[in-house]
Structures are given as structure tokens and as C-alpha cells.
């Protein structure tokens, strides 16, 4: 491999590592690209929702939505964004116990979100008769919020995995990049939640 050896001698050149991207590890770039694709996904679903808004001949309209209750759900998720950020920061600083506490708090807040959403959906289905096949509003509303809910559930699985690692006693600084990626994902999902709230419950209702 004399060729390679000769080339590597050039590594001492002033251009060495010129291309390095700050603190951007492969995991961070990968996660950012993934979240970018997720943004494209939700943008498409929001376009479909707006396209069909007010196009129905009959059935429930967005007026049946309970703004106050959804606001509670969104706030629960927003607070969980703070706790997950603390958990991620603590792990990076080697404080495993307080990281575990942060993850558990995040999980509890998320369960709270799921309960509130469950109440909202139960009322929509049982009282207002809004189902996915009732009318276009039902189709696009449940698809949009269903996708978001799926993302929250996926986040729950990630949190459960972190808890499993913590309770098996193997949580250490080596898990920190993974925890940070989870935090990024979580902030994204919660950002989507705020966007959906603003678009569906506030602006176009």
C-alpha cells in the first residue's frame, strides 16, 4: 500500500480536515435528514387537509373540535420537550440518575397527552359522529392527527428503550448521542403538534 502511504503523507498539508462540519456527527446529519423528510410528509398531509376544508356537503365540521382540551394536550407535549431536553443534557454531563428522572417525566407527560387525545377522539366519534369515512373533514382530520399520534407512539417506544437501558444499569455517557437524537425527534414531533394546533384548531376553524 505504498500509494496510500504516500498520499497520507499529504495529510500534514494545511488543507487537512478543511471539510469537517463542526460538531455534525453522522448521527446528527442522519437525524436531521430524517426529520427533513418527516417535515415533507406532514406538509403534504396539511396541504390535503386545507384542500378539503369546507368542501363537505354534510356531517360534522371543524366547529365540533374542542379547542381548550387540545390546548391542554399541546401544552403537555410542550412541557415534555423541556423535560427531554434536560434528560439529554444531564446524560451528556454524566448525570445518569437525573437523566432517568427526565425520561420518566417525559413519558408520564406523554401518557397525559395520549389520555387527553383519547378523550377528544372519543367525543368526536361517540358524540359528534365524526369518523374517517363520515366525510372529507373526518378523512383528512384523522389522517393528519393519526400520523402525528403514530409519531408520538414511536417516541414512546424510544423513551421505553431508554428506560430499559437505565433500569438495567447500563446507562452511561456512551448513550448520550442516542439520547440527543431522541430529544431532536421529540422536539420535532412537538413542533408538529403546535403547527397542527395552530392550523386546524386556531387559524382555519
Amino acid at each position, binding site marked *: 500500500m505504498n500509494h496510500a502511504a504516500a*498520499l497520507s503523507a499529504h495529510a500534514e498539508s494545511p488543507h487537512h480536515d478543511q*471539510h469537517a462540519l463542526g460538531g455534525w456527527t453522522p448521527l446528527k446529519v*442522519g437525524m436531521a435528514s430524517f426529520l427533513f423528510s418527516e417535515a415533507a410528509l406532514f406538509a403534504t398531509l396539511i396541504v390535503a387537509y386545507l384542500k378539503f376544508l369546507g368542501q363537505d356537503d354534510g356531517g360534522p365540521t371543524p366547529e365540533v373540535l374542542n379547542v381548550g382540551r387540545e390546548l391542554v394536550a399541546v401544552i403537555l407535549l410542550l412541557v415534555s420537550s423541556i423535560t427531554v431536553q434536560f434528560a439529554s443534557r444531564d446524560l451528556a454531563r454524566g448525570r445518569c440518575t437525573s437523566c432517568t428522572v427526565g425520561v420518566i417525566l417525559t413519558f408520564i407527560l406523554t401518557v397525559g397527552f395520549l389520555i387527553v387525545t383519547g378523550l377528544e377522539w372519543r367525543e368526536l366519534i361517540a358524540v359528534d359522529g365524526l369518523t374517517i369515512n363520515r366525510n372529507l373533514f373526518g378523512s383528512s382530520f384523522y389522517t393528519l392527527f393519526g*400520523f402525528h399520534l403514530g409519531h408520538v407512539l414511536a417516541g414512546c417506544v424510544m423513551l421505553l428503550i431508554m428506560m430499559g437501558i437505565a433500569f438495567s444499569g447500563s446507562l452511561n455517557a456512551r448513550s448520550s448521542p442516542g439520547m440527543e437524537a431522541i430529544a431532536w425527534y421529540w422536539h420535532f414531533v412537538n413542533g408538529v403538534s403546535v403547527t397542527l394546533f395552530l392550523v386546524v384548531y386556531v387559524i382555519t376553524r
Partner: protein
Amino acid sequence: MATTVAVPEMTDKSPRRSSLLEWVTTVDHKRIGIMYLLAALFFLVCAGTEAALMRIQLWKARFDFLEPDTFNQLFTMHGTTMVFFVGMPILVGFGNFLVPLMIGARDMAFPRMNAFGLWMFILGGLLTYYSFLQGGAPDVGWFAYAPLTSATFSRGMSTDYWILGLMTSGLGTLSGGINFIATILTMRAPGMTFGRMPLFIWMMLVDAVLIVIAFPPLTAAQTMLLLDRQLGAHFFDPQQGGSAVLWQHLFWFFGHPEVYILILPAFGMISEIIPVFARKVIFGYESVAAATVLIAFIACGVWAHHMFALGLSRTIDIFFSGSTFLIAIPTGIKMFNWIATLYGGKIRFQTPMIFCLGFLAMFLIGGLSGVMLAAVPFDWQASDTYFVVAHFHYVLFGGTLFGIFGGFYYWFPKMSGRLMNETLGKWNFWLLMIGFNLTFFPMHISGLMGMPRRIYTYDPELGVDIWNQLSTIGVLVQAAAFIVFAVNLIGSLRSGERSGDDPWDAWTLEWLTTSPPPAYNFEVIPAVRSRRPLWDLKHPEDPDWEHE
């Protein structure tokens, strides 16, 4: 290499079987890349057979070789297969094999996710083809327009197989795109700045960004369609206020960038091959890279040129016509770059190069008919005729597939350690060139004479029998070309001439290591000072970095 150790041929049976297991469980980017290529070649045989059956049916007016609904299944599966299970996997396969080698990395950024992508693609392909055993394949066209796809018109499961198969393989494609972005942005060898990346790497990076932008809308649209079919949602059901036009918008918002996803890596391949065989550096490196970024940018704003016949509105038509014309500018820049690279070069007419020259000629024809179709009034005349079929085959077959063939002949030695046979390569090229043009050039004429696409037969009064017969004969010639390729591939794998590490006297990093490369790629991580690190190494008296 300085030290070459003769490895005894393995003849014992048991190590062979364990090596098959090794291949199936591998996370090595080179093996994953090669498996992508092999699986895609398998699907190429499927799609080619489907095309040949259609061409037999179209041999003469009112021929009854195939049932109409069989014909619908065949054109749907041919298009779906070529786009999702042949074109993209071959390009992703080359990308997998080459990207880490070209940037001097040990592997892709996420090797296990890489294997995940491969197996999702294979699963998606098999899922789609399984529909043949479940009462019939999808028959709604590769674009699956509503309301043909509604539960009313598409009974049975075929459309659901189409949705689920493409979602599955799409997930694999997306994971591949993310992997390419992370690998290229963070794992380049010391000294390899953006301005020194091989152009193939530039194209793969832009390609991956397009994948990340274009696939999620398709997934969203397919989810809506699945909900329509399975849970009674109304997205694409005009009877209930839904919109069939929305499907077209969402599909083509994916579909047009998809065309660029299919062509950009081929652009990258010929941007690597042409300079090596013209013995010159690429003309205007910066403008090729910039034009690629520009193409990707414009490609996201031209989708409705597939919908001119819909009658959207004058304003919308004018906007999308204009943006489509615009795309000819960066594409034209690249054509001039490649031709200027050839100009004054000491051209070696070996097989990889003649496929690139074929690419330039054929892609030019496809590009020009594309400019014709960008004019709305012309498009209204030619829409849904064989003229359009001719256009996109000149782009995706004459362009992408010719580039891929060039890539096979060029990088096969790196993958296998052996050269492909030059004589068979020339036969392969000329048979393909003649067969391809015999098949697709007459379609311009039959199309302008009014022959509609996606219809199982045509009227004798149309007077297009002769053009269809030429097309069908062309398929026979193409089949001969593919057989020559298969013979060459298998024969060269077994007993091809040993290639050595750098058979073409090339300049990019993949030729620095052995052929085939070891699992770890490079013994020493190479450092880079110019766009042609191997040139610098071979010519220390006149290195590129003094001039760049």
C-alpha cells in the same frame, strides 16, 4: 499493489455455503451494493419480459395475443418495476459500492440501516410481484390515477399490493438517501473539500436530497389511497367531494423529481468515465456541480407539466411550461461540459466510453423531445401518445440505462478483480444501440400519427402497423444485446482477464485500493489535495493541486 498474495481457489462445498450466509447477513457496503445490482438485474429480466410481451401484442392492428386486462397489468408492472425495482436499486447499488470508496471512507455512515434498505427494497419488489399469485397484478398504470384505484373500479387486492410494495421499498430508498447524505457530509477523507469531491459524489448527494424531499409526499398520498380503499375515507373519491386531481398533484410532485433521481447518478457516472477515457480533466467542474444543484431545485417546481391535458388553468400551464423550459438550461450546460471534455482529448474508445458516447447522443434526443413536450399546445397533441413513450425511453433508457451499462463495464473490475470482455462489450453496445433506436425511434412517428399509449391494440386505419413492427423487431435485437451482456458478465466473472487495481489509469480514490477491495477498504486513510488524488500520486512532478 506492492504485495500480492495468491489466494487458492475455494472448491470445497462447506465454505461456499457459509459464504452465502455471510452475503445475506452482511452490513458491508460493497456486498450490499453488489446485492442491489444483482436483485435489480433480476427485476430487469422481469420488466423486459413484460415489455416484450406487450410488443408482441402490438405487432399488428387488432392482434389478440394478450387479453386487454393482461395488457393493463403488463404496462403497469413494467413501469413500476423499471422505476422502483430496477432503475433506483441499480443506482443505489452503484452508490453503495462507490461512495465510501470514492471519498476514502471505511463504510457507509449507518451500515445496518444500509442492509435494512436493501432488504426493504427486495421485500417491496417481491410483495408487488406476489400480486400475480393473488388474482392479478396491479393494472392502474405506474401513476395509479384516481378514480381507477378506488375500491369501486379496482376490485381485489392488486392496488393494495402496489401501495404496500412501493411503501416498503420506498422506506428502504428513504433510509438509503439519509445514509448517503450522512456519509458524504461527514465521512470524507482528510482534505476532500466539497470542491474536491468527485462529481459522482456530488450527484449522489443531490440525488439523496431529492429522495428525502420527494418520497414522503408519495408515502402520504399512498397512505391516503390505502385509507380510501380499506377504511372508506374519501380523499380521491369525486363522488364524495374528494379530488382525483389532488392525487395527480401529489403523485407528480414525487414523480418528476423521481425522474431526476433516476438520471442524476447516471450523469455522475459519465462525469467520471468521460474524463478518464478522454485523458482530460472534466471541463468546468464547478459548473457541472452547480448545474446539478440547480436541476434538483427546479425539478421540484415542474410537476404539473404531466397534467397539461387536465386543463388546470392558463396561468398554471404557463408557469409549469416556463419552469420546464428552464430546466433545459442547466441540463444543456452539462451536455456542453461533457462535449468540451471530449474536445481535444486522446479518446480511448473502450466499452465504458462508447456507452457514455451513446448516452450523450440518446439523452440529447430525449432532452429535445422533452423541450417539445414542455410547450403546452404541443403537449395537448402528443399527450398520452407513443410520442411521450419515445421521449421518456430516450431519457431513462438511452440516458440512465446506457450510463449504467457504462458503469458496469467501468467498475466491474473494481468489484470482481477481472475485466469484462472488450469484444463482447462492443457487441453489447452496438446491438443495444441498434435495437434501442429500432424500438423507440418509430414511436415518435406512430405517436404523432395518433397511436395512444396504454391501449392494448390500435385501429388498422391508423396506418401505424409498420412502425409498430419495427418497434417489435427492435425488441429482439435488444434481447440479443442483453444476452450478450449476461454472457459477458458471467463469463468475465469466471475467467475474465485479471484487471489489477487500476486498469483504466484513473484518478479517483476507489482505484487506489485492491480489486476487489478488502473489507476495510483502505489500509491507510488517504489524504486528498486535489480533485484527482491518484493523478497527484502518479505525477508528483506535476500535481493538480498546484493548479486548482
